């Protein structure tokens, strides 16, 4: 912006953004071709595959906490725990070449996601520790934008390979592995290690033990943000339901259905950085709650009887805005209440609470859909969301929170 001097984004943040971008290209390549591979390549019925998802969600939350804790131990091993997570996901890709039945493929995907669970908190802690308190929102915004760009590129690469080959799933998996290996290498070479990476001063009082990690919740700031993330998560309907509702309410043709997530991702990509900067300026709480306002507006649009052609675009734009205003911003906000020595554990706690709440919301929403129908279920979610947002507003810290 004119007249306002910007400090550069820390090189460590850019390096982590590059690692996430590269890794997301790799993982979304596999995700994009997996249904086709199972059905056309292996002749398997993928139905019932999703059952594993539910069971795995719980385990994944646990892994995230473990990753966060391990990263804090020994005075900050964030880089190496995150690196292990990235490497674990990378070695899963060539294994897909030799697995030809649903059970082993399911196991490989579970290990892949274990790697993702392990690395998330240490990576966010590194971003948080490498940036100053005043620019943290922007740092997370830059990272999330790069991450999402990778997720959008991955399917394009995968389909390009399938186009150039005949049943080239083996080539997709091989290239995906090469890309993932590159991501690990960029991390090892260009991301500074935990010890010397942090610009934030170490707080010697907080020893990174399990007890002190749990004790973080006794701190008012983190407890407040955890409670809010949890409550708002309880009213955050999962993406697949949003797309399903969009299709039910607006009659989005089936062939466009697979493209709906692209709308969300596109808005997320474009807005992650501007909203991160906005969060630095006007306060992270304001932007975080504003994001939920966007989600509430999306619910409201889905509930109206207006069926204009612009509606799906609006809903997806609002959905993407919600992610851009909440995903990285929450991490930036949570960072304020956590001492540097426990940064990874603290962020993992907040993320896990939010993920668990969203999972509970999925179960409740599915049940409500069965009993009351889709519209009433959504109306219920909207009411809960409005109530939780109003409650969070009362909890929000008074005065400016950006240092």
């Amino acid at each position, binding site marked *: 912006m004119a007249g306002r001097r910007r400090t550069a984004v820390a090189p460590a943040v850019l390096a982590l953004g590059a690692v996430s971008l590269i890794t997301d290209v790799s993982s*979304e390549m596999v*995700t994009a071709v*997996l*249904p086709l591979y199972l*059905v*056309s390549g292996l*002749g398997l*019925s*993928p*139905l*019932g*595959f*999703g*059952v*594993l*998802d539910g069971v795995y969600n719980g385990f994944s939350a646990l892994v995230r906490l473990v990753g966060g804790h391990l990263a804090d131990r020994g005075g900050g091993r964030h880089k190496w725990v995150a690196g292990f997570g990235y490497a674990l996901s990378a070695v899963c890709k060539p294994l897909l070449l030799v697995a030809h*039945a*649903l059970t082993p493929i*399911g196991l490989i*995907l579970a290990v892949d996601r274990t790697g993702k669970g392990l690395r998330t908190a240490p990576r966010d802690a590194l971003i948080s520790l490498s940036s100053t308190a005043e620019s943290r929102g922007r740092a997370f915004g830059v990272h999330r934008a790069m991450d999402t760009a990778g*997720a959008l590129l991955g*399917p*394009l690469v995968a*389909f390009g*390979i*399938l*186009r*150039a*080959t*005949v*049943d*080239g799933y*083996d*080539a997709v998996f*091989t*290239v995906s592995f*090469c*890309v993932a*290996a*590159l991501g690990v*290498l*960029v991390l090892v*070479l*260009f991301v500074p290690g935990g010890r010397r990476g942090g610009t934030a001063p170490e707080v010697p009082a907080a020893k990174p033990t399990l007890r002190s990690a749990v004790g973080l919740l006794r701190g008012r700031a983190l407890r407040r943000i955890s409670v809010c993330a949890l409550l708002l998560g309880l009213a955050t309907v999962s993406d*697949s*339901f949003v*797309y*399903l509702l969009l299709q039910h309410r607006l009659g989005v*043709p*089936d*062939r466009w*259905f*697979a493209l709906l*997530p*692209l709308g969300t991702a596109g808005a997320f990509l474009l807005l992650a950085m501007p909203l991160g900067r906005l969060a630095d300026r006007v306060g992270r709480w304001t932007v975080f709650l504003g994001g939920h306002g966007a989600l509430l507006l999306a619910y409201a649009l889905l509930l109206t009887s207006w069926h204009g052609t612009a509606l799906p675009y609006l809903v997806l734009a609002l959905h993407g805005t919600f992610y851009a205003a909440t995903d990285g911003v929450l991490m930036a906000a949570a960072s304020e209440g956590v001492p540097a020595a426990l940064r990874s554990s603290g962020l993992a706690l907040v993320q896990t609470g939010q993920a668990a709440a969203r999972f509970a919301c999925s179960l409740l*929403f*599915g049940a409500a*859909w*069965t009993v009351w129908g*889709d519209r009433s279920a959504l109306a219920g979610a909207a009411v809960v969301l409005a109530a939780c947002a109003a409650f969070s507003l009362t909890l929000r810290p008074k005065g400016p929170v950006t240092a």
Partner: protein
Amino acid sequence: MTVRTRVLILASAVAVLAAVGLASVLHASARADRRNHTQAGGPRVAPGTVTLTEHGRMVFRNMAWGPHRDELTTVPASDPSGPRTASGVKCLRFYAASGTGVCLQAVHGPVSDTYRALILDAHLRTRARYAVPGIPSRARVSPSGHFAAWTAFVGGDSYAGTNFSTRAAIVDVRTGRLIPTLEQFRIIKDGRPYRAADVNFWGVTFAADDRTFYATLATKGQTYLVRGDLRTSTLTTLRPNVECPSLSPDGTRIAFKKRVQGLPKDAPWRLYVLDLRTLRETPTAEPRSIDDQAVWKDTHTLVYSLPGDYGADLYEIPSDGTGAPRRISTAALSPAFVD
């Protein structure tokens, strides 16, 4: 380590990884040439005229390597392993009855493939086209030739990755009226109206009355046989654990795949036959797991596919639980017995 060393390491790694990636892509694209060569000892395929009204023929997707790979081909039903006549029409899935065919095919787009359903007349000319929202799975035509149905796998959410749903569509080929998804029908489950976000349908099979059909409904991890009514747009659950039903030509029995307890999770099915009058289930003598919607060759013989060296092979077995499976055709899929 200096920045220069690190950049140097990265550059050499990029070169090596790019070479590996490129080699794998080249290897996979060379496959095109191999598949266009006729395999030694494979079935003989020659181009010719294929119609859907020639008595006593089996029309199916030829999977044998060579120039006619994936084309609809025909053989005498009495000699299914004999020389094949290829039509030039490529389909992933196919079915036909009373001179109407349904062909589910891929359309190569600039980024990824899309799919469509073609309604074919007796001379395989396209009468209508419909977009199919995902990877085609099952195809059926009613005995009258008036209705066609197909099922597709739809990957809903690209971030979930492992979440799949199915869409089953039915079209009246006389009027072109399309039911894009059976989710529009009212569901009566155990005598009461039922709705849920996770409802999926697949494997439609039609009765001869142009009104009744059967299909699989899945919800909350359980599958059901449902009877559908095209006039009232309702679906009624009949019994649990029935997938990919296939109604016998006399309308009295349904062949289906049943999830049997104690089998491995990735090969859980056995081929069964349900008598609709007595509701008695009879297992067929096929000991392997079957993942197909079987086809009735006549009132007492079932034909189904199993994975083979070139994609899939066709087998037949008596429907009354006797006999043993017999391979009737290699490198073949989606058979229809026309007359």
